[in-house]
């Protein structure tokens, strides 16, 4: 049992939390104060829980050895005698293990958050309170939001961890230990977020605005600190992605020969590196207000509550581009494979991701039109907001042109790509009414915004994520998924999703407020709320079909051929699952990545003379089994 890193982490972490709380109480007594005060004691307890969890799992052991002047050597030393499954529950620096850890955790969180959504939908199905107090509803709504956000961040990291080193032809990430740390720090973070439910919950929603956030029950402290841990993971991950992408590409892979997914992740990593500090600091400042009484956001003490919204949205708007840019990258990545045509306008698709990332930094205050920033700021942010539509539009037209006159085949990944295309299009079109000041005054805080947001998240992340899972399933497991169940999943999910969001748009325009547990029957929302609830359960059912498909296929799916999709990308040119250090012979990129159907075009060659003299150690005998 104790050979599992996770178990050790949980035990040592729990001990650490108790020690931290005890020390804080002792210090308080020494200072002549009452021993127990919920916020400071829990704060120190939560921080030491995170640190000791990581100590217990062994995240710091190599660094500790360095600090003592010893040599830690190669980070990759999987015990050849230990069973393979144990690696997934331990501190393992291999990017493929970490990618799977991230993806599975993300899926687990999606199921949890989806369940919370279904509970909310049950409550909303009819007018009047069914089975929940408004406060519980608020906590569940906030949890649904933040757990989904965590799931999406982890899912993005999962895809990126597994795919980026493979796609750029590297044996692993640039900093493998740091990479493992980035994953494992999310686990205590998630535990803290779950803990927030059992320590009074929080009635602020996922945004945690002060002054309510500064007064809410203890639960919100754990919520803030959990988000803080996940944010730290996001920053450390982005350092790894950027270094790997910019410094470790295979010979011949210039920036404009990178797969589009890598471009999307490059833009995403830049946002993560620049913006994540802002949500972390905004939450830390509220925590300081709660724990030490520093009145950052309290006007009575010289603070300002709007300051929080500025700092918070400077991350939280670009965050949605963190969620969607990898997804849009997946769409661009898969379309040419299933259309058997070159990607139309490769450079424009690649650079539009960067453009979205950069413009994304200049739009945050469109969440604050109703705060009262004044006409000048409001209209400035309105223009920058609508500007985002330009690079997004470039992507759409290029995708359309890619599909034009192509030989489209409709396997499950392609279905999800097309679904993402349609859903994200509607998400994009429902955005400008929110981004325009005059209409936003009416749409702000209504279900219209909820519908818009879910369209962008499903079109930008969930559907591409599903497409990615089906597409790379044969690569990761060496087996094929069940095509019929996959298609069933797609159709159930799409129909259910449209039932939900169409109703949301409808009742939003009629004036249904978001974030409330109840509504007046006289408003006439009951029918559409019921349709939305039924749609929500259809989406839930589709996710069960997905689960059955994945579990059955991992255990008993038919063996996948080497390259079932006839993809040109690097990762499909090696065995499935890939060897420990990916490429037995060094890949050399000699052409464009998406020249499907172009006669005589080659993307990658292996073991070319001249490339191998740069790295004599990487021969097949040496690398694959070390």
């Amino acid at each position, binding site marked *: 049992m104790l050979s599992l890193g996770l178990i050790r982490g949980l035990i040592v972490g729990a001990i650490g939390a108790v020690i931290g709380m005890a020390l804080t109480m002792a210090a308080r007594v020494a200072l002549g104060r009452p021993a127990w005060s919920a916020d400071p004691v829990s704060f120190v307890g939560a921080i030491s829980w995170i640190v000791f969890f990581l100590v217990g799992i062994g995240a710091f052991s190599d660094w500790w050895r360095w600090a003592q002047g010893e040599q830690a050597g190669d*980070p990759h030393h999987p015990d050849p005698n230990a069973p393979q499954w144990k690696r997934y529950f331990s501190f393992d620096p291999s990017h493929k293990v970490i990618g799977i850890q991230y993806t599975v955790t993300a899926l687990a969180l999606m199921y949890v958050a989806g369940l919370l959504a279904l509970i909310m939908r049950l409550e909303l199905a009819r007018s009047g309170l069914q089975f929940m107090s408004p406060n519980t509803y608020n906590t569940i709504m906030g949890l649904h939001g933040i757990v989904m956000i965590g799931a999406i961040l982890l899912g993005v990291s999962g895809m990126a961890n597994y795919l980026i080193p493979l796609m750029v032809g590297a044996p692993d990430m640039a900093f493998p230990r740091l990479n493992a740390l980035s994953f494992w720090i999310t686990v205590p973070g998630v535990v803290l977020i779950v803990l927030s439910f059992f320590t009074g919950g929080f009635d602020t929603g996922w945004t945690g605005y002060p002054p309510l956030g500064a007064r809410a029950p203890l639960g919100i402290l754990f919520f803030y600190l959990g988000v803080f841990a996940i944010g730290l993971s996001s920053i450390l991950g*982005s350092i790894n992605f950027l270094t790997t992408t910019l*410094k470790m590409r295979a010979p011949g892979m210039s920036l404009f020969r990178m797969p589009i997914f890598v471009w999307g992740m490059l833009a995403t990593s830049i946002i993560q*590196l620049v913006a994540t500090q802002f949500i972390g600091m905004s939450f830390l400042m509220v925590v300081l207000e709660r724990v030490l009484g520093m009145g950052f956001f309290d006007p009575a003490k010289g603070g300002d509550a709007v300051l929080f919204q500025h700092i918070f949205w400077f991350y939280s708007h670009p965050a949605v581009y963190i969620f969607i840019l990898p997804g849009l990258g997946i769409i661009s990545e898969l379309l040419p494979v299933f259309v058997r045509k070159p990607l139309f306008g490769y450079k424009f698709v690649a650079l539009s991701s960067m453009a979205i990332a950069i413009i994304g930094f200049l739009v945050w205050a469109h969440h604050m039109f109703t705060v009262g920033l004044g006409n000048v700021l409001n209209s400035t942010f309105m223009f920058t907001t609508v500007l985002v539509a330009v690079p997004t539009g470039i992507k759409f037209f290029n995708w359309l042109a890619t599909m034009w006159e192509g030989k489209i085949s409709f396997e499950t990944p392609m279905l999800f790509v097309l679904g993402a295309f349609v859903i994200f299009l509607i998400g994009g079109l429902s955005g400008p009414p929110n981004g325009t000041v005059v209409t936003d005054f009416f749409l702000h805080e209504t279900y219209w915004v909820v519908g818009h947001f879910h369209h962008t998240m499903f079109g930008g992340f969930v559907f591409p994520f599903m497409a990615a899972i089906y597409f790379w399933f044969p690569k990761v497991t060496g087996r094929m998924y069940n095509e019929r169940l996959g298609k069933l999943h797609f159709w159930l999910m799409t129909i259910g999703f449209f039932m939900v969001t169409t109703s949301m748009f409808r009742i939003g325009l009629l004036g249904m407020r978001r974030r409330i547990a109840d509504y007046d029957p006289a408003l006439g929302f009951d029918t559409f709320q019921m349709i939305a609830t039924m749609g929500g359960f259809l989406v839930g059912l589709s996710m069960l079909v997905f689960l059955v498909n994945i579990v059955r296929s991992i255990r008993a799916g038919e063996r996948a051929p080497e390259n079932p999709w006839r993809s040109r990308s690097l990762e499909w040119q090696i065995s499935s699952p890939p060897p420990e250090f990916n490429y037995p012979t060094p890949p050399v990129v000699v052409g464009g990545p998406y020249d499907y159907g172009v006669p005589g075009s080659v993307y990658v060659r292996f073991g070319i003379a001249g490339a191998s003299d740069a*790295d004599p*150690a990487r021969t097949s005998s040496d690398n694959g089994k070390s």
Partner: protein
Amino acid sequence: MSTATTHTSAVVHPEYDRLALNRFGLWLFFFSESLIFLILLLTRFYLFGTSRPEELNQTLGLAITVILLLSSFTAYRAETAIAHDDRPQFLRNLLATILLGTLFLLGVVLVEWPEAPRLGIVPQEGFGIAFFSMTGMHAFHVLSGVLLLLMVYLNGRRGAYSSDSYWGVEASIKYWHFVDVVWVFFYPALYLL
């Protein structure tokens, strides 16, 4: 810290310039850290404009600023020394850096922090919010920098570094300079405006 992987990493992937990767990652980390301080700096200006209480101890502010700049100077000398295999000079200058850093820390935490509330600058409200959060976040980084340098010093005494293998020295000293750069901006924002 990673002397081990930097120069003896013939185990797995010798084709990458480990030092270049480490440096790139370290600078990305600095960039990301600098935003934390930028947020605090912006908060200070957002809440209090260019105003500043007159009561702050100017002598102390100038003294700790000079001390921190001097420590950067000795850190630079230490790195130059180890780059040319001059171990005694390296250790001497590193020790001076650690002492100056500790002096700075004591100046902030033991002198400035108890004194400011007596002058009416409390952490809970008014300018004290900015003053204590900025100096606190910075002091936290100084503390971690001192600890890092101390580890490097102890390893250096055991003979851990040489002119072709001193990434651990380089990284911690770069971090120390970074902490100094932060104070270069914090000092005028807190004491001089």
